[in-house]
């Protein structure tokens, strides 16, 4: 049986995290959970501990990339076979976890992405802000140009990874808005990717990282990140 770890990066998500952990209670027998508290100033750590979930508390804020990578390091050191990344803001419904793991257990993919925009079953109820949609469209096209692979939801944080993929990411992982760049790293290094259709919920509490200025700067960051991946010496 596969040893699966659910990695939940969280930054000031005390309200959303409580709801998410309550939902995850029913999965505790199947999967282990780790919360990576990215130096929150609220009660994120206390909330996680109240649900008896172990916490990796970072002393300084590293951003989503640094937080997720800490989870990957934890998974490597504790001998997990598969990890599933779930955002602490509660947008990701735990009902998709099993579907995300299936292709990995069958050996069909090294990384499975939960996508809102697959052509056969798009999430029509999910409303993406215009600026974010522009940024996502840009990164999708850029990734397609760079690799020839069409990933419809490059910014989705709902992903599962097999041991080889998260072991690779435990060594190097992008820092800011890492989702699209991480996909390029995987494709560039020969990992297999797969998308499955999922439905996501809107954020109820807390603040999104995609506010006005980050949304405007996002395409530029993606471009720089992609150039960096191409310039860097490949280490599989």
């Amino acid at each position: 049986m596969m040893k699966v770890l659910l990695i939940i990066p969280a930054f000031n998500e005390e309200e959303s995290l409580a709801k998410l952990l309550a939902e995850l209670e029913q999965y505790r027998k199947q999967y282990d959970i780790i919360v990576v508290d990215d130096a929150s100033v609220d009660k994120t750590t206390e909330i996680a501990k109240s649900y008896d979930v172990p916490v990796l508390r970072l002393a300084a804020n590293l951003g989503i990339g640094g937080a997720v990578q800490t989870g990957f390091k934890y998974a490597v050191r504790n001998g997990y076979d598969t990890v599933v990344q779930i955002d602490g803001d509660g947008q990701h419904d735990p009902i998709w976890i099993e579907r995300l793991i299936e292709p990995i257990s069958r050996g069909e993919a090294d990384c499975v992405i939960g996508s809102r925009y697959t052509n056969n079953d798009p999430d029509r109820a999910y409303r993406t802000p215009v600026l974010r949609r522009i940024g996502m469209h840009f990164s999708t096209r850029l990734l397609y140009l760079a690799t020839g692979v069409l990933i419809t939801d490059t910014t989705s944080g709902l992903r599962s990874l097999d041991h080889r993929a998260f072991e690779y990411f435990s060594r190097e992982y992008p820092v800011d808005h890492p989702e699209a760049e991480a996909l390029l790293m995987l494709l560039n290094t020969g990992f297999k990717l797969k998308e499955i259709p999922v439905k996501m919920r809107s954020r109820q509490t807390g603040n999104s990282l995609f506010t006005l200025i980050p949304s405007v700067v996002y395409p530029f960051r993606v471009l720089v990140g992609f150039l960096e991946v191409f310039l860097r010496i490949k280490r599989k």
Partner: protein
Amino acid sequence: MGTLSIPLRWAGAVIIFLFMVYTLMLIRSNKLNAQHATSWLIAEFFLFILLAFDPISVSIVRLIGANNAFSAIFLLAVVWGIALILDLLVRISELSNKLRAVNQELGLLSERFDRLQQSLMTADSDNKTK
């Protein structure tokens, strides 16, 4: 070939000398790392020599084919400035990578510590029950 006037050269040399003294004071008071300051000190020393000794500045102007001492110093300063900024960016990148790794290790260790503490408490309460 234009060179700098004597008062201007000496004023420049004095300012650079004061900067050198200030840099050394920062190192002495542990506010500046000597390794990080080396390139800066070398540049200050070189600029001081260039300003204090006219024949040297004349030779440099001839060597790089500049019209006058001003443009020669400006060109050298720009090249050195670019090299220094690049060196500092490399150092900042290295340090931020190290800081990230240390931060992550701290998080991983504190979780391990929590786990050990919890197992010790469980063992302790088990002993008391027996």
